[in-house]
């Protein structure tokens, strides 16, 4: 029969063969398929004991870096907060007092630096925007908490400890296609 669109297909269900009507041979076939999976490698990773290897460019928990002399790099310029598409970063700037030169590298510093980890989308734009080498995303996982407030990370969680430096060399290796703007 000719139809308007000429795309109509008459589907005809094939009649079952004798062995299919018997059910049992087909069931045996199915049983063989399932039993094969008994000996296959399991896909499960037993999480807390085993961990999956992270990608080299994994973007997790942020860190605020210090320089070699242990002074905070951040000057509270606010470029990261401007760059942040999720508006997760809040900075309050302050002026360095005399006698604090060993704490902060430049005259201005971040009195408070908060990242809301629930808003953060871990895009890494803050890291790209930072002119002072201060903020990096690391391969650490943001831990789970019970309260929403606990996800707002302050400087206590973000700034690296002097005796426990965090390695960000992986993040500093840029892709070969990445050409930083030189001035």
């Amino acid at each position: 029969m000719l139809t308007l669109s000429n795309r109509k297909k008459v589907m005809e269900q094939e009649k079952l063969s004798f062995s299919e009507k018997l059910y049992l041979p087909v069931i045996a076939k199915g049983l063989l398929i399932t039993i094969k999976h008994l000996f296959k490698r399991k896909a499960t990773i037993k999480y807390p004991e085993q961990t999956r290897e992270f990608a080299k460019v994994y973007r997790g928990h942020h860190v605020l870096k210090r320089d070699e002399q242990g002074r905070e790099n951040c000057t509270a310029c606010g470029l990261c907060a401007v760059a942040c598409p999720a508006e997760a970063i809040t900075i309050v700037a302050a002026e360095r007092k005399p006698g604090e030169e060993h704490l902060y590298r430049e005259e201005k510093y971040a009195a408070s630096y908060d990242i809301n980890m629930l808003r953060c989308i871990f895009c890494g734009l803050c890291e790209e925007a930072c002119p002072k080498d201060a903020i990096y995303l690391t391969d650490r996982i943001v831990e789970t908490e019970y309260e929403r407030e606990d996800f707002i990370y302050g400087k206590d969680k973000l700034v690296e400890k002097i005796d426990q430096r965090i390695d960000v060399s992986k993040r500093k290796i840029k892709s070969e296609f990445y050409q930083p703007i030189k001035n």
Partner: protein
Amino acid sequence: MGGFLLSKTILIVIIFVITLVIAMYSTILERKFAAWLQDRIGPNRTGPGGILQPLADGVKMFMKEEIIPANAHKFLFIMGPMLAMTTALMASVVIPWGKSLKIGDFVMDLQVADLNIGILYVFGVVSIGVYGIMIGGWASNNKFSLLGALRASSQMISYELAMSLSLVAVIMSTGTLSMGEIAAQQSGWHWNVFTQPLSFIIFIICAFAETNRTPFDLPECETELIGGYHTEYSSMGLGFYLFAEYINMFISSAVMATIFFGGYNMPFLDQLGLAPNVEALIGTAFFFGKIAFFILFFMWVRWTIPRFRYDQLMNLGWKVMIPLALVNILITGSVLILRDHFNF
């Protein structure tokens, strides 16, 4: 007489404990086996490899609040799971677990009661088991429960018919209804499955329907009826129903192993020349191996075949299973008569 009572009591307690432990560990095995067939690992957090999981589940079941719906018939609602559990446990009485042990002068049979109507007894007890499900589903005053109960009773009654008919052929060829004698007849390789293969296939399919296992788990199918007859149950009431299912699985595996796969008989065991007691115990262990195989087979099928539609289930039962069983009886009868006539 005292020794008789004592030995039977000990045997009953041992069988009771073994049944419960096997049913308990069937739950974890089921989950593990399902996981393995699906390329997963399965529960592995409680105890080494997850072997304490059944205990954790049991504690959870006991601790939960027992809820009886306001409009439920209270007496029947409580009666349902009790009945299901009791009947599930009762069937193990006639199963011969092994050859008799000789302790000094005393002979201890590893069978609680060798009734001369053993097979009839099993069927009688199993058919009471339907009432547990039916009463529970009906008393819940819930349409899903009622639907589940309806399905359960009609399914179990129709498949019981085919099941009994399939065994009639075995009874004809063995000439006895006693489970102990049927097991004893199958020494060596004279297993009934070789003389009655059709009967075995019908029996195992009906056993799946009787125990409400996939592909015939219509009474409790989650996707259609929430939980079927146990939708309204919580705490240990639910636990009893789930437990009864696993006990039923164990018992029907044991019945299958006894009637068709030689029970405690192990081929070539009598040629090793072991002490009779050791031989009996090895036979018992072999019997449990057969049971374990059937339990695994139940699970294996569960994770392979999808559920039947209800009309397909009824078609299969009434239009395929029962005629096949009748034909099987006819063939067996003819062969028996011919054998008598021609003496071969």
